Each structure stands twice: as C-alpha cells, then as structure tokens.
C-alpha cells in the first residue's frame, strides 16, 4: 500500500515536473546574468576560468556558505560518531597489493590535488575538486591500513587556518577596497598566468586545504568509529520505529 502510494505520487510529481519544465524557454534561455558574466568576467576578475570567477568573485559568499556547510556537517557527524566510541575498533589491514598501491598513489594524488587547486582560476577544477583529491590522498592509505596513526591534530590546525584565511582575506579586502570579499585588491594580473586574478588563487588554496582536511578527517573519524558488532554499544531501542 505504502509502496503503491509512493509510486503514485512519484508519477504525479514526474507529471507536474514535466508540465513545469515544459513551460521553460529551452534553447533561448533568458540568461541575462550568465551572459553578462561571460562578457565581463575577464575584465572584472582576470580569471581565465569563468566558473572560478563566478564561484570566488561574483558569488564568493555562496562559496563560503557551501564551505561552511561541509564544515558544520563534518562537525555534526563527528559529534554523533565520536560519542559512540566506547571500545576501540580496528579493522583488519588490507592485502599487500592494496597496501602498496595505496602508498604509491599518495604522492600522485597529492600533486594532482595541488595542481587542480592552484590552477583553478585558469583551467577547470579548483578548491572543491582539488580538496576532494587531496583528501583522497590522505584517506586511501588510511583505509588500506586502518591501524595507521592519523594526524588529527595537524588536520585540525590546517582546517582552522585554511578556513580562517578564506574569511580573513574577505575581511582584509574591506580595508583595501571597502567591500567584504572583494577579491581584486591584488589586481587582475596578467591574463592566463598562475599569478593572476587577484586573490582568487589564494582563496582557492585556502578552500582546497579546508575541504581536503575536512573530508580527510571526516573519513578518518568514521573509519575509527566502532562498528555495530563491537562490544559496549547499545542499540537505541527506538531505532526499530524508523
């Protein structure tokens, strides 16, 4: 019955969605803002990658918000996970091939991540993507060998420093430009060079480090949490109601 109802409503939703989308002007989208940004981006930000211009310059506040969402989600998850740490759980170490492969990938992932982050304003990529790759560089070896020590302390400081840098750059611009999060106080620089597009590369660096540290420590924390078959964990009674 419940499944039937869900199916029915899903179809209803699909129907209405098609009605709604059917009313949209495909092919001749009124993308005034998009168009204007494409036209003005290079002049305004000096970033070869227009997406970066949008993400960090035009809509820097959104990016800060997204970054914070990640941060607070990781914090909340950590709060829930950590509290259940009664016993110490260690999963078994992976086989030789996996271990060796993971260790081998570490430098490559690190370099790839750094590249993606630093060239965010020039080529596709940037802080989020690079950050995820950086995180992977750290947690892949960790997953292969869960017993390995995890640099929680260092991660926390990187995370805090990177996040603070992102905001402090924004606050700093108040004194230079009079506006919060105005990234152009360093000048647009020479188009297409690594050092160009104002503070965008710096912002991306901060963003990438923050995301990387965040995701890395999140995965590490979950991996370190006890499993349900570990002793000393009481199953919440109400879990069955859900």
């Amino acid at each position, binding site marked *: 019955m*419940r499944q039937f109802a*869900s199916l029915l*409503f899903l179809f*209803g*939703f699909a129907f*209405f969605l098609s009605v709604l989308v059917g009313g949209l002007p495909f092919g001749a989208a009124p993308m005034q803002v998009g168009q204007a940004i494409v036209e003005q981006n290079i002049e305004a930000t000096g970033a070869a990658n227009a997406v970066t211009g949008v993400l960090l310059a035009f809509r820097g506040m959104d990016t800060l918000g997204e970054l914070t969402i990640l941060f607070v989600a990781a914090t909340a998850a950590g709060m829930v996970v950590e509290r259940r740490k009664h016993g110490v759980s260690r999963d078994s170490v992976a086989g030789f091939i996996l271990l060796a492969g993971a260790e081998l990938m570490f430098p490559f992932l690190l370099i790839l991540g750094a590249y993606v982050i630093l060239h965010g304003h020039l080529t596709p990529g940037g802080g989020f993507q690079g950050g995820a790759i950086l995180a992977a560089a750290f947690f892949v070896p960790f997953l292969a060998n869960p017993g390995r020590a995890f640099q929680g302390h260092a991660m926390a400081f990187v995370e805090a420093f990177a996040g603070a840098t992102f905001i402090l750059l924004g606050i700093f611009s108040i004194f230079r430009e009079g506006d919060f999060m105005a990234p152009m106080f360093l000048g647009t620089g020479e188009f297409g060079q690594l050092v160009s597009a104002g503070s965008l590369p710096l912002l991306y660096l901060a963003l990438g480090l923050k995301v990387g540290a965040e995701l890395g420590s999140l995965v590490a924390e979950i991996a370190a949490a006890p499993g349900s078959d570990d002793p000393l964990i009481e199953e919440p009674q109400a879990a069955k*109601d859900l």
Partner: protein
Amino acid sequence: MIPSLDLLLALAFGNLGLMLLAGRNPTAGLLSMILYALQGWVLVMLMPALAEGAASGLAFQVFGWSLSWELNGLGWFFAIITVGAAFFSAWFAAGAWGVQGTRSPWAFHVTLAANVAAMLLLLASRDLLTLFIGWELVTWAGYAMMIQSGGPATRAAYKYLIYGVAGGLAVLAAVVLIQVQAGGLGFAAVAAWMPGISTGMLWALMLLLGVGFGIKMAFLPFHRWQAEAYGESPGPAAAFLGAISSRMGLFGLLILLVHFIGLARLDELLLPLIGLDARILWMWLSALTIIIPTFIALKQNDARMLLAWHGIGQGGYMLLGVLVGSELGVAGGLLHVFNYATYQAVLFLVMGAVVYRTGTAHLDRLGGLITRMPLSYVAMLFAIIGLAGLPPMNGFVSKWMVYKALLDEGLPLLFVAAVIGTLGTILSVFKLIHNVFLGQLRVEHEQIREVPFSMWGPMIALSLIVFITGYMPGLALDLVMVAQTSLGFAALDYHLGGFVTDTGNLNMLAVVSVLLLGMGIGAGIFLLGGNKSKRVHQLDNYAGGHFLTTEVRYHYSHHFYAGLLRLIGPWYITLIKRLEGGIAALTDTLAAGSDGLYRTAYTPILMLAATVLGLALVL
C-alpha cells in the same frame, strides 16, 4: 477634584493592585470595601456628566486603531450594579469568612477586584474593539474567580471557559468583519453603517454577536455552562458572579439589538419559511430561557445549583422586557437587572453563610435552620419573595411591568410563558427555603450559631434594599431611566411609588401599605385574641400514627415535586447535552487522529503528496 471616569478606573485598578499586594492582610476586605464604596461615590458623582458621555483620558494607539473609553448611561447603570454587588460581596468576605471560608482570601479579593476592573472597562467601551478587550478580560477574570474552590469547580470553570472562549471568538470574528466592512469600529459609526447593509450580512452579524453575547448571558441553547460554574464558586464569589457577571451578555445584546440594529429593523427581518420576524424569535428564545432553566432548577438538590439555574431563567425577563420596546417594557426589563442583582446576591450570600456553618448546601442534608440562623432566614425570605416576583418585594415591580407591557403590546402568549416561568420559580424557591430553614433541624446542626455580623450584615442590608425598592420602586427607576434614555427610548412616567401609563398605574406605596396594614391587623387579632398557640419541641411530632425518634427524621425534602418532574420530562436538555458530548467526542477523535498523523514515520511520502496535491491545486 471633579470625579471622572479616569478616577473610577484608577480606583478599580488601584484596588486590584492593592489586593495583589495586601490581599493576605486581615484588613484587605475592609480596604477593598472602602475602595468599592469610593467607586460607587465616583459613579454617583458622574451622573450629571453622562448626558455628554464621561470620557476617559486613557487612550492607546495600536496598529492604527485608537483605543479610548467613555462611559454612557447604559454602561453607568450596569456599573452601579457591578460596584454595588462587589461592595456587598467584599463585605461578606471581609470578616470571618475571609479568614477561614476559602482556600485563600487573597485569591478571592484579587479576582473580585479584577472582575470589577474588567467589567468597568467593558462597560465604558466606546467602540467594538475596546468592547471586545473588556469582554475577554471579563471572561478570564470570571474564570479566575471560579477556579478558586478547586475540585468540581475546576471542571465547571473549564466548561465555562470553553463556552466563553468560543463566544468571545464569535464576537471577535464579527468585530473584524464590521471593521473591514464598515471601516470603523466606533459605536456611532457602526450604528450609522448598519442600516445600509444587506440582510444576509445582518443575519451573519446577528448570529455571530448574538451567539457571543448570548453565551455569556447563558441564553438558550448556550446555557449549559452557567449553573455549574456559578454554583461551584465560593459563596461571595457566586453572589457577585450571579448578580452581575452574566448581565454583561445582556449589555452586549442591548447594544447589538437596540443600538446597532434597532427594534424596527428586527421587525423587518423575516425568518425564511416560518414567517416570524427576528424580534419575535428573540422574544421566544427569551421566553424559553425563562421557562426551561427554571424547571430544571426545580429538580436540583444542591441549593447553590438551584439558585444558579434560576439565574439563567431570570435573564430571559430582562431581554424580553426590553424587546417589547415600549417605555414600560424597557423600564421593566432594565429594572429587573437591578432587582435581580439585589436578591440573587442575598440568596447566594445566605447559602454561603449556611455552607460556612454546616459545610453543605445539599438540600437533603439541611433543614430547620430557622431556629439557629434566624437572621439568615429573614434575609432569604425577603429574597425569595423578590425572586418569585411577589409583593411587597422589588421583583414584583419589574415582573409586573414586563407582564403589563406584554399585554399592552398584544403579546398574550409570551405573557403566559412568562407567568409559567414565575410559577416554576415560586415552586422552587419554596423548596429552597423549606429544605434549608424549615422542617426539622438535623442533629448535627443543633450546636451551630448564627453567622457573625460581617456575614449577616451584607445579607440583611441587601434584603432591606430588596424591600425598600419594592416599597419605593421610584428610587431604582431613577437609575433605570438613565440607561433607558441612553438607549434611545423615551422615559417612563414614574414616581416614587410606581409608574403611570395610559392603561393603568401602579403605586407600590399604596399596595405595600395595604399589605402591611393587613398583616398588622392579623397580628393584632392574633395577639389580642389570646395567643392560642403552644410551643412544642421540634421532635415532638408524629407521622402515620408513629412518633418519630431522634434517629428517624421526618423530612419532606427528598424527591420534592417528583410528580411534576416526571410530567415535564427534560427531553430538550438531553438533546443539548448529547450535542455537547458529541462535539467533545469528535474533538477527541480528531485530536487522536492528528497526533497519529504527526507520529507516522513515513514522512517523505507525506511531503511528496503535499507537493503533488499542492501543484494540482494551484496549476
């Protein structure tokens, strides 16, 4: 200093504040008596200013509405009664009763002061918004007064509250509707706007406001809350509430029916199918309100409940009188407000005194108290004669005026209905006084004494008022005329002893004098003719050939009027009761359903359903 409405309100609220702070002090009752007396004095001083309206300097601006207050003749009339009732209730509670008779004298004094202040605010309202504010304050203040005794009183008060809130919200809906439609809320503005509105709108407003005000007045069929709520209140509280609280509903109905709509417009409002007009409808509802609760009162076995059921019925006379519309009828209806307040207060105070001494108001467990509490007996005797509407008490005058007005206007059927109500009243008040004061004294009551002066004082004082205004109704008619002219009716031609109309006069001075003379002659004959009576002990008595022992009492109180009650069979009340129960059950079911809805775990489906249905609704 010239007394003004401000001074009055300041005294009322000052009293409230004082009672909040010092209500536990033994002198609190005395203090509040003084303050009520002062309020009464201010009211009397205000009398000349009423013609232009005694405005208050109190004013607020809220959301573009200005709230201000002004006392007019009608409000003044009700205010006098309010303050008077409060004075006597406070007197009753000031002494011994206040110390031991209630769980907390503080609560009584505070709630009494709050009630008076709220009622004065209501009576001094100059627009519908201030009226509504006063209305709600009166409702909640009344609730606070009723819950004091705890126990069954809590349940009764709860019922009152539900009715009161529902009625208040009906008024609120009407007020907002008027504000949106008329663009203003001032009484004069609304009265000026009313003639132009459509019949449907008029019915809607009359229904909403009529229900709202009618609930407060316990008008049929919204009467079920009142008896219990008043009956369960402590003595002086019941006296105050019974005397004046539900008259606020009458005040509202008068503004609605007479001032806003006008009796002439009521005549034009025809009911569909039946062909009756709205005025006749209201009058018949009043008549039913007189009859049915009065006969329910008959079968009560708790004295306070009996009185409370009576209170419902008496309200019917007041509205009936005013709706007649002639000078005599309006004066009779309004005079009944005053008269009723005096004797109803006495009755509740006497029962308060009886409960204070015996601990019960159950009619089967009392009897013969006349030898122990003679002053209370005298007070009750005066009051029940008033309630029954017999000469020489004031109740007779006002009822007589209503009867006469009904006959003069050619409404004999309503006259008969009103008289049937009086018949029921006579029967039930006889049951009351018999079962409490007459008959045999019960063993456990042999040691009790009359209540102290602080309690019999107000009773006797009030019952003297009952007598004096019966003897000289012109005194009360002075007050009534202020209200009557303020409502826009012509003044009645009256004098100290009664009134003069084209079709006949009434002079109570003559009537009562003759009555007293007759009684004097009778007493003289009795005394001069050699007193043949013999004093016997109460238990020196027999029935069916058997002497009665001290264990077996011969008491008539049980199943009083059993035959009559079988005859009238209260089927109508059962219907309303069932309806009430049905609504309660429906609410419970819906509540359980809603609770269940919020406990279901499959919320995403609900959300999806809401989205889809919402899209379907608006697209």
